[in-house]
């Protein structure tokens, strides 16, 4: 347990409001290293329940790296070391007692490139519930699959071909399938790493609408390189630069009156 007294008592260079009233995830002084190279420098931020927060910043600034710390996906990279503290519901997720497997079931992830398993649509969505034993019967599993596909807005398009391969869908459909797969495990938080960067504008619009819907029930952290997208869907925005968290705040404020010079430069298109 991270004690309540010192979490809002942290030294940080970040401009803006890093704290939330109802924090789900609390990150304090997080450093990330790839071998000798430091990719994240002293980042502290809260992520609230049922908020959509977007991470923006020039590419290579560490957005993905930081995002992958939140569900410990960085564990799969040998050279990657994480320092500082990250807690979910006040429990340190890097604690030895924490089971990564259950942690990742609570924090789902959607990747940059749609990556459905080379299995049927049904099997893709059923995968998570199966490995976590979330259903006790075939009917229950069917129910979960159907609901997840409905929540991701894919049901009407695929209900007649649940047994055909997931890889046969269009890019946008595949990405929504991946979202359905993630929510089938009933996570509390969904991390999305540039989920629309491989999609055309129409598919992107559908995903954005979906994210807005999902924001009512989940906390969503989305990395995006499109500032319009950040402006359209997120309540808060965090601007990263060279591994540092420069500025955080309400999306409106960040885009209309950024306090930091670098943030302003990026938003007005002078850093890309």
């Amino acid at each position, binding site marked *: 347990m991270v004690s309540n007294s010192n979490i809002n008592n942290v030294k940080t260079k970040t401009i803006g409001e890093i704290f939330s009233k109802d924090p789900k995830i609390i990150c304090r002084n997080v450093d990330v290293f790839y071998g000798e190279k430091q990719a994240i420098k002293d980042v502290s931020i809260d992520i609230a329940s049922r908020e959509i927060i977007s991470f923006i910043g020039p590419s290579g600034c560490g957005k993905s790296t930081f995002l992958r710390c939140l569900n410990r996906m960085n564990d799969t990279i040998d050279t990657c070391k994480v320092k500082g503290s990250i807690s979910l519901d006040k429990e340190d997720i890097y604690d030895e007692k924490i089971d990564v497997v259950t942690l990742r*079931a609570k924090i789902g992830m959607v990747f940059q490139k749609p990556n459905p398993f*080379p299995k049927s649509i049904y099997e893709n969505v059923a995968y998570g519930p199966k490995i976590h034993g979330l259903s006790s019967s075939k009917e229950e599993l069917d129910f979960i699959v159907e609901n997840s596909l409905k929540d991701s807005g894919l049901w009407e398009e695929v209900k007649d071909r649940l047994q055909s*391969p997931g890889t046969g869908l269009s890019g946008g459909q595949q990405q929504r399938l991946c979202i359905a797969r993630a929510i089938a495990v009933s996570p509390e938080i969904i991390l999305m790493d540039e989920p629309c960067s491989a999609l055309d504008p129409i598919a992107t619009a559908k995903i954005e609408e979906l994210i807005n819907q999902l924001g009512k029930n989940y906390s969503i952290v989305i990395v995006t390189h499109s500032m319009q997208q950040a402006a359209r869907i997120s309540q808060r925005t965090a601007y990263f630069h060279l591994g540092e968290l420069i500025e955080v705040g309400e999306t409106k404020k960040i885009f209309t009156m950024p306090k930091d010079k670098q943030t302003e430069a990026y938003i007005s298109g002078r850093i890309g």
Partner: protein
Amino acid sequence: MNEYTLLILLLLISLLWFYFGNKTALSLKNKQLKLNSLPHYYGIYVALYSIIPSLFSYLLILVFDGILFSNLIMEFVPKEILNSPDFNKIIVLAQIDNAVRGIYFGEQPDWVTIASNQMIEWNNQSLIVNFFCSISLALGIGYLGFKNIHQEFRSRNSVEKIIISLLGLSSIIAILTTIGIVFSVIFESLRFFAIIPASEFLFGLTWNPQFEGAERAGSGQEGLASYGSVPLFVGTFLISLIALCVSVPIGLFSAVYLSEYANKKERSIFKPLLEILAGIPTVVYGFFAALTVAPLMRNGGSLIGLDVASESALAAGFVMGIMIIPFISSLSDDVINAVPQSLRDAGYGLGSTKNEVITNVIIPAALPGIIASIILAVSRAIGETMIVVMAAGLAANLSFNPLDAVTTVTAQIVTILVGDQEFESAKTLSAFALALTLIVITLILNFYALHVVKKYREQYE
């Protein structure tokens, strides 16, 4: 001068053309003209233009004259030899050929001397004809190519075309060779089936060609040879099955370990070590099986009250299994590595353990490749001979018991064809029938496997 000097001469001429082509192109370039291609392409173009037709005519004349002369020379062979029952054209030709080279065995009959002198004369004439034809082609056609060189000539594209046709030609040669082998096996097999009915060969349960034409010891009457191939195929199947039981789990598990669990350093040590297994000559496996594994199994078996033959299918299959491990592990390791990282990420992102990712995501995605590696291993196992000869024995027992001595198709082919043999006997010809059946079986296996792989592909991609 002989045919080799002529060949070298042709090569020299084409080199010369390369030099001239290159030089002309360079001089065009020096005149500030913009060439279509790099200068050396002009050189290569002229050189290829000169060498290909001349080489073709050189080989054509060589082969054609060889065939022609060997037929004409029969005029010089005396009638009584030609008509005698054991006349053999190949032997007669070899006799003359030896005389031509100045090799004599004992007394030389007169007609051989005359014939060989005639042959030498013909050969010389042929060489002269060949010389003029090939050299004039090399120079003449080379010159035509050379004259083609001008500023806009696209030598690069032309060279490309010539190279493409050469590549096509090579693949045609490979295909023709395969077809040739298959047909020769088919024809010899047909001769076998003219003596022994196919039904007996395919369904007969005893394989015993040793008595062919021989007197059965003591009995004074001709023994009966039998050509039922079932025991051999059962033996092949049994040994291959044992080999697969050993190699598939070990190969697959080590592939998974190598690609998913081992770190870089372990991988760089283990992978080459495993691949060394593939480089060990099979004869070494053979005596390892015969001298180490088989006695071990026999002794081990007698300890627990099992009667293991000193040459057993188990010993041979076990060692063969070890031999084919690298085929499975190395290839499977490659296909597992080729499974995109994004799929692993998807698995881990959903909260799978490493083991779940491997069994539910990676192996299914890599399955077509894994099956392909197993098929490769099976065809190695079926074709393997040395280990069987040394460790499983040559007794054609019809048995499904892995502790018995059995033999395989390839091992029988070897025993039939080593040592003295008559080419016309059913015993010798049976080797071809066996080979044909083996080819057909492996073909069916391959087609079936391809079919399975394709089906999985459709389902999984």
